[in-house]
């Protein structure tokens, strides 16, 4: 494995210490480059994880070694050297901050630069009387600030980093972790299981309507650091939670791997609304750099009449491979997928959803809007599957593609597998080019070229955007315009 002798010595110390309990003093903030069982031991020790968790990670790692990278998506990129990345990097602090006052002002400045709304910055900074959006900030793998936990606690809602949850609620984590996305589900999910460094855990108890929108910001900072976030949300019977996830990443040159796993579990009559604005660095105009976004997001509608709604606005990343899905296992459960995917320059996106109807009277809705500009490739890939025992299933799918440039590509790959004759499946798809008439009309009313494109594209995405929570919708609209800058002409 890669790494200096010194680093290996340190790892040996850490993993050596681990046998006797928790590590108390580790000077090293980074695991050496590369991936090995030792690195996984290091991560686990760093996270002060119990033994079962380490075993679980090692099993996943061994499984991953035997798996192959998937190659069926319509994306292409240079082969990833998994030994040429760091799997653990933490902000340089000896102890975690005990209160928000201890949060590095540099970090807060970074949030400001990333354009995180003042309101949420205030929340993050713990300003008295600031709006109630709880932010669990993930900064380079470690959760450095968690707010509003107390208020949530009063409602019985658990909202904390997954590392803390593993320590504080091990039984609950054990009960649900990898039950929706099994360890061996796919190459990137297995990798995530082995090396995930942080993420979020949410539990909403029976009958509780979560008193605020939960929000997490992810960001990649250190060079060569892969991000392997792990999110687990459990909504108990009759509960409701809305979770917002937004990602931004600064300019950088080298490709970075982001392989998150998100698992949602909705029990009887529970509802989870999961919204994403993904704006990872897409690479430059020549297609250099950018994030590889290989994410596994899946929800299990386990209980009867449960509901999960995915809404995503994907504008970033050099390569996106992402299919937020719903397994509709509870009778009468509902799955929804609302997606906007924008690609520009040399970006590639292969995204969509899977709706697996296992139980009777389950319903799903898929609305996908793909916008391709520059020389990008944008693919919708979706599966609607109805199992034989699932009576009276309904699905409605609408896939619209808009081409902004003549050199870009839009592709739609719907799979429909129906094994029950009572199912009603509707699929509509359109592909259109941004019209000269619309452009001229907007411009003849005083809009600049890019303003006109942004307006037409926002109109095209309206049906999806209206499903975003208000504070996100405004940001997302701006983001669409920004993402398409320079795409005209």
């Amino acid at each position, binding site marked *: 494995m890669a790494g200096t002798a010194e680093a290996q010595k340190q790892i040996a110390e850490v993993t050596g210490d681990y046998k006797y309990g928790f590590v108390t003093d580790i000077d090293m903030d980074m695991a050496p480059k590369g991936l090995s069982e030792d690195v996984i031991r290091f991560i686990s020790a760093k996270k002060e994880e119990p033994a079962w968790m380490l075993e679980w990670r090692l099993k996943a790692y061994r499984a991953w070694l035997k798996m192959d990278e998937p190659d069926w998506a319509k994306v292409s990129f240079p082969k990833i050297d998994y030994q040429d990345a760091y799997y653990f990097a933490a902000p340089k602090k000896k102890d975690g901050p005990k209160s928000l006052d201890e949060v590095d002002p540099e970090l807060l400045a970074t949030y400001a630069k990333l354009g995180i709304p003042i309101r949420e910055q205030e929340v993050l900074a713990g300003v008295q009387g600031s709006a109630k959006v709880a932010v669990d900030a993930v900064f380079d793998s470690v959760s450095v600030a968690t707010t509003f936990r107390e208020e949530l606690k009063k409602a019985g809602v658990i909202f904390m980093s997954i590392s803390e949850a593993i320590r504080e609620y091990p039984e609950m984590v054990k009960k649900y972790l990898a039950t929706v996305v099994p360890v061996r589900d796919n190459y990137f999910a297995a990798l995530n299981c082995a090396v995930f460094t942080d993420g979020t855990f949410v539990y909403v108890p029976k009958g509780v309507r979560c008193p605020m929108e939960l929000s997490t910001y992810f960001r990649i900072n250190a060079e060569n650091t892969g991000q392997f976030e792990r999110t687990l949300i459990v909504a108990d019977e009759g509960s409701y939670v809305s979770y917002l996830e937004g990602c931004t990443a600064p300019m950088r040159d080298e490709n970075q791997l982001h392989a998150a796993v998100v698992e949602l579990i909705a029990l009887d009559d529970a509802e989870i609304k999961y919204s994403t604005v993904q704006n990872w660095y897409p690479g430059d105009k020549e297609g250099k750099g950018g994030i590889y976004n290989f994410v596994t997001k899946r929800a299990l509608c386990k209980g009867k009449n449960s509901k999960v709604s995915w809404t995503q606005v994907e504008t970033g990343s050099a390569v996106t491979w992402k299919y937020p899905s719903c397994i509709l296992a509870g009778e009468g459960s509902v799955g929804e997928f609302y997606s906007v995917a924008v690609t520009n320059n040399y970006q590639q996106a292969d995204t969509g959803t899977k709706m697996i109807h296992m139980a009777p009277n389950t319903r799903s809705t898929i609305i996908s809007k793909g916008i391709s500009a520059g020389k990008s490739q944008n693919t919708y890939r979706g599966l609607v599957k109805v199992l034989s025992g699932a009576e009276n299933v309904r699905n409605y799918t609408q896939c619209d593609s808009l081409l902004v440039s003549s050199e870009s590509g839009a592709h739609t790959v719907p799979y429909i597998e129906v094994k029950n004759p009572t199912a009603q499946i509707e699929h509509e798809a359109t592909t259109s080019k941004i*019209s*000269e*008439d*619309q*452009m*001229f*009309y*907007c*411009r*003849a*009313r*005083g*809009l*600049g*070229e890019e*303003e*006109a494109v942004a*307006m*037409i594209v*926002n*109109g*095209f*995405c*309206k*049906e999806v955007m209206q499903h975003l929570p208000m504070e996100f919708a405004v940001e997302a609209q701006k983001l669409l315009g920004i993402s398409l800058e320079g795409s005209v002409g």
Partner: protein
Amino acid sequence: MLNIKDLHVSVGDKEIVKGLNLEIKAGETHAIMGLNGAGKSTLAAAIAGRDDYEVTSGSIEFGGKDMLALEPHERVGEGLFLGFQYPVEIPGVSNLNFLRTALNSVRKYRGEAEMSAAEFMKLVREKAKALNMDPEMLKRFVNVGFSGGEKKRNEMVQMAVLDPKLAILDETDSGLDIDALKTVAEGINTQRRKDTAILLITHYQRLLSYVQPDVVHVMIDGRIVKSGGKELALELEEKGYADVA
């Protein structure tokens, strides 16, 4: 205000406007009449700066500025408005949002501050009311599912809100019933002032009974072949283009 000299416009390889001269002064209303294919709409699009409408020679001056050096939206900023023969649908974009973005873009070009939401709403409601437009239509997507008359009325609301120095109205009267025609004519007449000018492009004399022009031009095959007072329109109606020209 508008000064066009020896204008030649081609679309693709085909020359449509073939040496056109036109001068419009502030306070004047002109009408260009002509048959289909005479080049009227091409002229309007070229003045507004549509892509693919190539000005091969000649000049267009507006308010002392060389329009050909400006982008379409900059021309709007300078005070030009083009009313469309076929207003375009923009799904998902509400009329209000569209209008507000348009107005603020123009204000930005002129170095003015954005209009506040409250001020804007007041202005739009007032203009819509004057043109008998149902305020509910302001919330609907731009021209989507509008009848022909509603679309034209919407153009008039846009014109009223943007308050241009020169409005070029391309076949604004086509497809209107008599009530809608009267409303649209009222909208145009409201826009007629000492400091503004109007250029009507039309097939028929009908609109000109409600909006009386100062000058009528006859356009045939890419050129203005005859100009006169408002009586010329009646003459055209009576005798047809061939005889008058």
